[in-house]
């Protein structure tokens, strides 16, 4: 009897060890030396990717592999680095997950792709492209670089992004923009909401477009912009005493408004097919 119990315990322990080994996390680190304006691309089917500025001309990639059923392909061609997760044997999402942490030169061009995400980038100055299906995207404190984000359902948040082109497109993800300014800031979502909290500064072009999602902009009383807002089927409201402006577009109370505040330094276009549009004063 005791020997049977011992055998059962040993078997259980062995089975647990084998199972743990199959799903053991593995950390791998890759280092690359690059010149100015490097181009870095990371593509993973499942997993998070985060990027922060590193030191000097080094790119440091730390990959955490959730199992042995996935491997990391890495390649450097001059100033271009490509990192990709390679799923083996029809791996599922759990086993195929690889999380990446990147330390890169601040001026590098960065391309991040992940179906599940999340994707994040902060304190960078190069061009950023972030794309995911359901990935939550977070971009913070980016200056001078162009930012391109595409998701299917993943929500997108940009905070303190300045002086570059910003282009965001989502099928149904919500878009939150806080202190985002630049020569061009364009966001579109089909059914997701777009929320802007800023001052529409930098003399830029701001265009927010949805199909059924609501659009809300929260701006200071001294905002300087020309506004045009129209919802085909939804309601449109504003809290500002807009100065009239000559325009080929008509104004329909409750459905659209056109006018300027201050010096009309920036141009703001808010369009929705059936969503509500609200321009609120902070």
């Amino acid at each position: 009897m005791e020997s049977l119990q011992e055998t059962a315990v040993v078997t259980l322990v062995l089975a647990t060890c084998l199972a743990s080994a199959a799903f053991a996390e593995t950390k791998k680190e890759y280092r690359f030396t690059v010149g100015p304006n490097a181009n870095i691309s990371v593509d993973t089917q499942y997993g998070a990717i985060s990027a922060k500025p590193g030191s000097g001309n080094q790119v440091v990639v730390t990959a955490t592999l959730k199992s042995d059923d996935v491997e990391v392909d890495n390649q450097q061609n001059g100033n271009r680095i490509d990192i990709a997760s390679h799923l083996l044997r029809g791996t599922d999402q759990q086993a195929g997950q690889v999380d990446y942490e990147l330390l890169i030169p601040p001026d590098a061009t960065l391309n991040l792709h992940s179906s599940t995400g999340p994707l994040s980038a902060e304190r960078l100055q190069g061009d950023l492209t972030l794309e995911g299906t359901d990935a939550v995207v977070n971009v913070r404190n980016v200056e001078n670089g162009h930012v391109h984000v595409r998701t299917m359902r993943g929500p997108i948040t940009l905070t303190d992004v300045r002086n570059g082109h910003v282009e965001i497109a989502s099928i149904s993800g919500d878009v939150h923009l806080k202190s985002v300014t630049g020569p061009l800031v364009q966001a579109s979502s089909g059914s997701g909401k777009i929320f802007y909290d800023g001052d529409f500064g930098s003399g830029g072009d701001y265009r927010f477009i949805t199909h059924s999602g609501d659009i809300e902009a929260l701006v200071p009383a001294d905002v300087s912009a020309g506004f045009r807002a129209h919802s085909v089927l939804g309601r449109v409201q504003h809290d500002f005493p807009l100065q009239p402006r000559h325009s080929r577009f008509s104004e329909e109370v409750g459905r659209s408004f056109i006018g300027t505040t201050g010096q009309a330094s920036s141009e703001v276009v808010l369009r929705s097919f059936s969503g509500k549009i609200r321009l609120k004063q902070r």
Partner: protein
Amino acid sequence: MTCSDVQRVLPELLDGAPDGAFQTDFDTHVKSCPACSELVSDLKLISSEARQLAATEEPAPRVWVRIAAELRAEGLIREPQSAPTRPILIPTSPRRRWSAWWLVPVAAALLAAGSYVVSHKPAPQVAKQQAPATSVTSAVPETPAVTSPSVPTSAPQQLAQKSAQPTDIVGPAVGPAVEPAPSAEDQQFLSVVSTRAPSMRATYENQLQAVNADIRETQAYVDRNPGDADARQHLMDAYQQKALLYQIALDRIQ
């Protein structure tokens, strides 16, 4: 050498891998065939322009989408027989293998069909409250650009005539009581997703239904209000959303 032979060997010759036997026959045919001559000159232009692009300035995917759409419109590339295959004359991105490449021209065809539908709505009589320029092209700058300077442009009407009318658009009724059957392109799209990413099928199907519903809703409104330029622009935006969905799926299906 026939026109189809020319199309088959053209990529090799453009890549600078001349074959003596082919070269002579090729040159003879091109000199005598205006269609093939024009094709060769167009592709040489594209090829030379592409070489001047720096590695970090790889053309956006929409460039290839437009190329594929125009070649498809001219009947120079074939529809895939069964499994999706790469069109003969289209270069692929070096970083991604698009085995479901046929979806790209479909996405472009959707955009072109939307452009054709929107731009061919009757312009309104001069009314004090309507913009003088009511065609879609005047409103294009408000949406993400879909043109590229390196691609020979073709009138949207030509592309739209070749591409099917949106088969998933119901008539000008306010809204169908029952979800209409997916179009052939959507069915093919979902079939490929089911094969290559079965866990994502439900997600893509739901998103596709939502996007198609947006298109139908907007189309119905435009049919009732043909003079509403903003509504026509929203219809274009809805088609672009569908193209975006196809592109996101293409990027993930391997």
